[in-house]
């Protein structure tokens, strides 16, 4: 319930901020739609990085009615495409953790980031690209299809400059919106329940995008929070489903600001290209990751929150 209230508060604040910006900068409204005519400045989606496996009706199905396993908004794990992919990644064959890692690697490294309106996981898989929420939904759907409970973790966030340069500063209006709010309205991660605990999966950035910002390549179980995202206190939300309104909001944005979204997508492509050069110069993903992690110093140990005698929560 409190997650819904937090979400509602964020949506209202974000929408108000955007409407205020549009009202006070009417000239900018036209720029939101404007697309460049130059060929090199139009966004062209890169080719999909994988083939979709064939579906077989005999494929095993996970229980569909339990919380965190059932289909939710924009995330149906029981479509033929999702189930076929889940089985090809090792659903019901691998141990849950190993399978979740495989699903994580797929969602993180095989899909491109592309700012586009919300739609179903099937369509994301066909396209091979989507927003971070599309990618998270792919991860969650793959987990649920294999009987592993999975959910969304959402928050408003500030971010390191390198990330901001690629995602926010590409378009003046997006930048103004970010500056006006003081943070990025909504960002997310997935969480899968394996080995008795919820394990975070940050599938948003590919290795090359992370390399372009000098970040280590995220592993299953590693959080973006504290590294390149910094959650605005009080905005963390755990949800089973993509909340109501986010989908409509994304369609509305696409309608009023196709030019802005295209510029952000071009920024993402440029970020990926730059990152590929960084990876090549470092001698590959693993060598790059080793070097960056070494420079970051000791790893941050995971703090498991255990019951402690002394703390009393009044009812």
């Amino acid at each position, binding site marked *: 319930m*409190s997650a819904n209230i937090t979400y509602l508060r964020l949506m209202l*604040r974000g929408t108000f901020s955007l409407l205020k910006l549009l009202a006070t900068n009417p000239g900018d409204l036209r720029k939101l739609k404007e697309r460049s005519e130059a060929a090199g400045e139009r966004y062209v989606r890169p080719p999909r990085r994988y083939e979709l496996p064939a579906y077989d009706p005999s494929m095993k199905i996970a229980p569909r009615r339990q919380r965190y396993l059932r289909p939710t908004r924009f995330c149906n794990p029981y479509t033929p495409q999702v189930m076929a992919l889940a089985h090809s990644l090792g659903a019901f064959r691998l141990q849950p953790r190993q399978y979740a890692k495989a699903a994580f690697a797929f969602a993180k490294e095989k899909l491109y980031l592309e700012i586009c309106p919300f739609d179903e996981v099937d369509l994301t898989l066909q396209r091979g690209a989507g927003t971070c929420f599309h990618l998270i939904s792919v991860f969650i759907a793959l987990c649920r299809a294999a009987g592993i409970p999975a959910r969304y973790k959402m928050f408003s966030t*500030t971010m*390191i400059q390198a990330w901001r340069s690629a995602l926010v500063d590409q378009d003046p209006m997006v930048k103004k919106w970010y*500056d*006006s*709010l*003081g*943070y990025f309205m909504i960002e997310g991660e997935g969480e899968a329940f394996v080995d008795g605990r919820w394990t975070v999966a940050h599938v948003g950035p590919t290795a090359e995008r992370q390399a372009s910002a*000098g970040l280590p390549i995220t592993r299953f179980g590693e*959080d973006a*929070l*504290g*590294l390149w995202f*910094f*959650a*605005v*206190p*009080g905005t*963390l939300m755990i949800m089973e489903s993509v909340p109501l309104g986010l989908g409509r909001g994304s369609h509305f944005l696409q309608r009023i600001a196709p030019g802005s979204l295209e510029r952000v997508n071009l920024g993402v492509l440029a970020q990926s290209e730059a990152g590929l050069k960084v990876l090549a110069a470092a001698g590959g993903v693993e060598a790059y990751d080793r070097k960056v992690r*070494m*420079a*970051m*110093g*000791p*790893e*941050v*140990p*995971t*703090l*498991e*929150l*255990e019951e*402690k*005698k*002394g*703390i*009393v*929560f*009044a009812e």
Partner: protein
Amino acid sequence: MAISYAEYMELFDKRVAAYIPPLESWSPVEKAIYGIPDPFHLPPEVAQRLQFEALSFTFRHHFQKNAYYHKLCLERGFTPEELKGPDDLERIPLLPDRFFKEYPAGRDFAMWLANVMTGDLPKIVIKEKNPSYDQVIEAFQQAGITVCFSSGTSGRHTFIPRDERTFNLSEYAITKGAVAIGYPGWSPEMKGYLMMPNPRKTHLFAGRVAMIYFDTISEVTVAIDREVSVDLLAKAMGADRSLAGRIVQYASRKTEKRMVEKIIAWLEYHQEKTQDVLTLVGAPYLLAGVLEQLEADGKRLQMGGRAGVATGGGWKIQEGRRIPSEQFRAWVEERLGIPPKDCIDVYGMVEGNGWMTHCPEGHYFHIPTCYFKPMVLDKEFKPLGFGQWGRFAFLDAAALSYPGFMVTGDLVKMLERCPVCDRTGPVLEPEVRRAVGEEMRGCGEEVRNLVSSDLGN
């Protein structure tokens, strides 16, 4: 006749007796902090013995009573049984300072603090269903645990819980260092101006740390005498762009000018009407505002010989502008008449209790090695020798309520001994930098943000 050093420190210890536990309860940590006459004049072999005994005690304490640190030690393959001599100290597993920035919200924040802490907790009652950071901090305070926070420009705070024992050790250590190095300059009759938030009204470390200042001298006037909560700080830092945030920022701009005027009025009053000996303690940025205002008004005060300055938090006066400490001291002398030898800086951080204090002669940071082991690490996080720039890390024996074995985001250069004065032990070069990729931070930066874009910034 000048007071002897022994009498001087006896007087100091009497003044701050409330911070010193009974002798019979002292562990090697207390012995290394309360039991020595001067942390900066110990024979090296004595400092090394005290340091080893204190750190062995603290390392064993965390290994035995802190679940995550115990696990970390096992993962890194180093346990108290393997700590056999001073050479082994560098093998003690270190935590990155980022560890204390990764915390959840609400009741989980209370659980996080409880899990970060070493040992048993007193009873802490969290009444709210979805408590704010401030409410959790207050609940811990009610139970005698001081949770201090700091933050970077992103608004991500560092939270450190100190029980009474650790807090008192830290308070005593910072003051003893400054009093010892300033011998015979301190007197309990002194009057002071605290250019930071009122320690009784904030848990911001760049304020709370000065609690002992009130017990050390006869009278303290506070520059920022209002509640400074986590929430208010977020608004003042600009992280909160809501209407409330903007109102706080606007109010800050309105009050800062008055703050500087009050400090100048206080200085002028004492120059003209009293013979009191004065101290100015706090953020260099606020003092820089005073100096700027005096410059704008064409005023020069003559406080030399009866006033001293102790700053903390670095020299980040404006974004992208850095004032070297030497230049700052010259400016202080020009506008306040206080000579550079009476203008010192203290380097420390919310995560630690080791306070490195400028010597008046050379303004190198002297390190209290009797309980605090400094290290400088290379890019692969291996210890470097003296005379090289690297990342600052430390083993802090005074951190008993949390593991204070840490790698920081600061770049320092450590020398085997001070090139200028005769104090013993290693020193840090006067300027401390931030490592590339680390957020700009420091107490001075927080106060700078707190008073917002003040003083014509």
